């Protein structure tokens, strides 16, 4: 029963994907169809066109098992044998350094902007 419910919900979500893909190709938008579908599903929920419980379980499964869906692409690394040598080590170092920069920049900005907000709230009260 649960499996049928999940399948139906995934089909509903897939319908939004297909609509997104259709808009992407007919309107020649540079945004991927999946992202257009995401926005449409959000709007449908927000405007109460469809209730949350119609997609909730299916969405949870799809996002929880995301790793499974991109494993086949990750296995594509076997077509790039260079990556297993010094090139791979260089790339890993770049990724570590860049990730530290990204996290510091995001954290400091968020800290600054949300602290300002708390202060104004305090001021109001």
């Amino acid at each position, binding site marked *: 029963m649960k499996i049928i419910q999940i399948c139906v919900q*995934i089909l509903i*979500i*897939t319908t*939004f*994907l297909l609509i997104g893909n259709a808009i992407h190709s007919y309107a020649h938008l*540079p*945004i*991927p*169809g*999946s*992202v257009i*579908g*995401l*926005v449409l*599903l*959000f709007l449908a*929920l*927000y405007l109460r066109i469809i209730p*949350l419980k119609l*997609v909730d379980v*299916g*969405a949870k499964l*799809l*996002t929880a098992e*995301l*790793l*499974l*869906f*991109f*494993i*086949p*692409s*990750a*296995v*594509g*690394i*076997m*077509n790039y044998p260079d*990556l297993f040598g010094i090139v791979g080590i*260089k*790339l*890993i170092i*770049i*990724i*570590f*350094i*860049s*990730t*530290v*920069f*990204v*996290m510091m*920049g*995001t*954290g400091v*900005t*968020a*800290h600054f*902007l949300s602290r300002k*907000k708390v202060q104004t709230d305090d001021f109001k009260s």
Partner: protein
Amino acid sequence: MISSLSLGIVLTLFIYMLSKMLAKRYPYLWLSPLIICPVTLVLFLSVFHVNYTTYARGAHYISLLLGPATVAFAVPIYKNRALIKQYATAILGSLVIGVIIAFTSSYFLAKSLNFSSQMVHSMMPRSITTPIAMDLSTMLGGQPNLTAIFVIVTGLAGSIVGPLVIRFMRIRSASARGLLLGMGAHGCGTSTAFSIGELEGSFASVAMILAALVSIILSIFFF
């Protein structure tokens, strides 16, 4: 023909389930399904001399679910809409800064080490969630399979350095902690954030999804 179709699907599902069971029993980062699953599959295919094209003939049916998974991100955004409204400035501001740093630092670091332009463009979307990173990689002229690898390495790197950045920078607010983890390391950062706290996790999942949208919008205008 039929056997090669089912090979990719069955093998991937089987190793995925095994690696999840392993991770449940031994929850160490280096035993995460993110590493174990692709590594086991690559070893298996190499040992049995199956080339990637044969494997992918079946396995690409699994990849088709990346599209619906992206659409499904609308649900956590909808559930956290009150949080997003309340912290709109902090979320949007920090994500725009984060995305700009992610793209430019990947670009210049890779460029300075003389990587090919395909490699550089595959690196740029590495800090956002895989399905959208792969789409963006195609848009920028990168190779989506390479991007998937870089996204995985980013997730692992972020799970290691994220808590260190938080401690070193003395970041105490749940919003800033969650946002930096979700922005810097997508799904991996989000699960790290949930292990710190519920609120940190919510901010991280919002950051992960909105960072992908911000990346698309910024790359349409600037790249």
